[in-house]
């Protein structure tokens, strides 16, 4: 790694990375130490690239700096510094331009939906992480999930936000010709809510919801699956007792107000906007059903990936970096202002802010405080995909039994995500089928068939 590139990269990286530690662990800085060992003068050892930038920032007075170094030695100074500042992740950012080979395609069209789930994509642009990878990314606001799917199939979009179950059904060719699709990262956890019309504010028990009409963004989206699970756990048959209508998020509030639907389960800021407009109240947050549940994902087609491996990796690296940045609560200040712009979500800032900070009005006169109302952890757990598939099978959206675990391993790029997170100094778990807890019940993703059998016989 050349020293010059090191300097260039770091100055940009520092501007948005200082003052945070991605994983909260103490980092070692082997490269820095090697640098210190191999040089004659301790001052010169530190003059290389980022070390000087950071060191000078910490001790602006040169005389004091020299005295300090003489007293403790460069090695000690470096390890002390790296204990305080995540030098490893700074370094990883600095190395961003390092790719395996030339980029096959630089101008990329990337789709997003105007909801808070898209935050990592938006911040990939805002922080210049795409540009740093040599990519010219054009973010396109797309009107809906089905349209994203069509634009991905016809190649108008290279990467896109998409609800994760669609990636699974497209890969398996359920309902259409198979289009193998991969999930690079999960964009967000939580960040959805179940909102009911004001007239139901005294009817909070789902057991009394027979005949309700719910708006959902897409039939086989995780929102629909979670809502179905919630209703079924409360003794309703989602297929017979209630009805679902696929409604684009832009129409939630007007449908709620006119009484066309009794409630909706969708991505924020839809729910918070309904509260802001006085049209509904937040019955529950999606995290109350399943803590850590996956929401949208970043997808690319297998065909695109194999044709453009370097571009794929460069984009992947940028989006992982962006996800880690926005998932840190320390970086959330001012985020609502950026997201609320017409170019992105096009919503009032006060509405978006309540989603991002988790301090929100519930529509019934209470202020709630839920700091993890939305999170942006990128790692694509297999278990998430397996659960979605069991539920699609449960409600007959998948007509036959399939190998749930195999499909999950095929679609969720857990190994790659783990490696790229590792480059940024974040330890992700080894790919595996972990257990989840959903409405207090355990789901063992290692044994999907048993879980499904239990659910199907009970129904």
């Amino acid at each position: 790694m050349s020293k010059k590139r090191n300097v260039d990269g770091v100055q940009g990286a520092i501007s948005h990375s200082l003052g945070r530690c991605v994983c909260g662990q103490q980092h070692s800085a082997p490269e820095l130490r090697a640098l210190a060992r191999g040089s004659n003068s301790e001052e010169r050892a530190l003059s290389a690239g980022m070390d000087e930038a950071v060191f000078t920032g910490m001790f602006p007075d040169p005389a004091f700096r020299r005295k300090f170094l003489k007293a403790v030695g460069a090695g000690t100074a470096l390890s002390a510094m790296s204990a305080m500042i995540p030098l490893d992740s700074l370094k990883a950012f600095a190395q961003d331009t390092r790719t395996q080979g030339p980029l096959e395609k630089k101008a990329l069209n990337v789709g997003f939906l105007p909801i808070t789930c898209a935050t990592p994509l938006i911040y990939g642009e805002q922080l210049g992480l795409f540009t740093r990878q040599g990519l010219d990314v054009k973010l396109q606001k797309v009107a809906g999930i089905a349209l994203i799917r069509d634009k991905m199939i016809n190649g108008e979009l290279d990467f896109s936000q998409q609800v994760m179950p669609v990636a699974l059904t497209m890969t398996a060719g359920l309902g259409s010709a198979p289009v193998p699709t991969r999930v690079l990262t999960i964009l967000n956890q939580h960040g959805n809510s179940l909102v009911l019309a004001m007239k139901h504010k005294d009817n909070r028990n789902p057991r009394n919801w027979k005949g309700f009409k719910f708006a959902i963004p897409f039939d086989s989206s995780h929102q629909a699956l979670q809502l179905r699970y919630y209703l079924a756990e409360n003794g309703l048959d989602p297929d017979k007792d209630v009805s679902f209508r696929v409604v684009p998020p832009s129409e939630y509030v007007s449908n709620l107000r006119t009484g066309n639907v009794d409630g909706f389960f969708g991505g924020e800021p839809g729910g918070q906007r309904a509260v802001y407009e006085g049209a509904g109240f937040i019955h529950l947050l999606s995290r109350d059903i399943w803590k850590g549940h996956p929401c949208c994902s970043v997808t690319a087609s297998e065909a695109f990936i194999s044709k453009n491996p370097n571009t794929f990796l460069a984009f992947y690296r940028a989006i992982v970096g962006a996800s880690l940045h926005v998932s840190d609560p320390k970086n959330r200040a001012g985020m609502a202002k950026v997201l609320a712009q017409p170019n992105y979500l096009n919503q009032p800032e006060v509405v978006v802010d309540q989603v991002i900070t988790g301090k929100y009005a519930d529509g019934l006169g209470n202020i709630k405080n839920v700091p993890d109302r939305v999170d942006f952890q990128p790692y694509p757990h297999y278990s998430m995909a397996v659960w979605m598939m069991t539920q699609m099978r449960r409600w007959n959206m998948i007509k036959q039994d399939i190998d749930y675990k195999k499909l999950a391993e095929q679609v969720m790029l857990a190994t790659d995500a783990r490696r790229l997170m590792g480059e940024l100094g974040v330890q992700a778990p080894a790919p595996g089928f972990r257990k989840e807890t959903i409405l207090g019940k355990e789901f063992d993703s290692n044994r999907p068939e048993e879980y499904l059998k239990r659910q199907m016989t009970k129904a």
Partner: protein
Amino acid sequence: MKGLFDRPWVLSLLLFAAFVLVWHLATGGGAASQAPVDPEYAKLIGQSGPAQGQSAMPTPMDVVRRSGELLSHAFDRHGTNDLGIGWHLVHSLARVLGGYAIAVVVAVPLGFAIGLVPKLYAALNPFIQVLKPVSPLAWMPLALYTLKDSGASAIFIIFICSVWPLLINTAFGVSAVRQDWLNVSRVLGLSVWARIRHIVFPAAVPMILTGMRISIGTAWFVIVAAEMVVGQSGIGYFIWNEWNNLQIASMITAIVLIGLVGLGLDSLLALMTRLLAFQE
């Protein structure tokens, strides 16, 4: 006083003023909802400060203010998803003119052919009659699937909706040329080509232009719907985007602009008709 109230534009103005007045009364008078319980909560639901909770309908003044904002920044660009309203109109017009031009190129010669050859007309008529009433938007999924491009699909939708009025009007105009004139041409011994050029075509021009006028109107109102579905830009996309934000004042502005542009397109073709029409 005679005269002033006889002029139609005075009546129009009065009607408009009455409409705005009713609108103003209907939207402005709404008292604020329940007194906010807790100022902090009120802030979160947008009921404090100057932004007094978003009411469902903006007042006429809101719309005027918003129009002013939109029009004064009509050609701004703030990133790929935030273009000024002028750009959206330009994009919509480009799509409409693209699809419309293809329709004219296809439908006028074809209409001529079926107008001249009654047998061909009879053979094609069932297809035309079945396809004509299909809503252009019904073609959208099919277009997206086959053309594999949303921009091309929008142009295709415009093509498919403007082709029918053009085709039918052209065919009708060609087949309805006065028999006397055709007889005269026979007496004069004109060749087929000369007959088409000097008699049939000039006689059919008014009907062709009528078809073109109907088509441009249809195309302009279909583009809005098409862009709401697939748009990345265009005035339909603009409305969708503002709807997302429940920005009704912007939507009303866009509706008025759509109307004005539609009127402009129609007047343009009306002018063409006057200039080119064959005077008997």
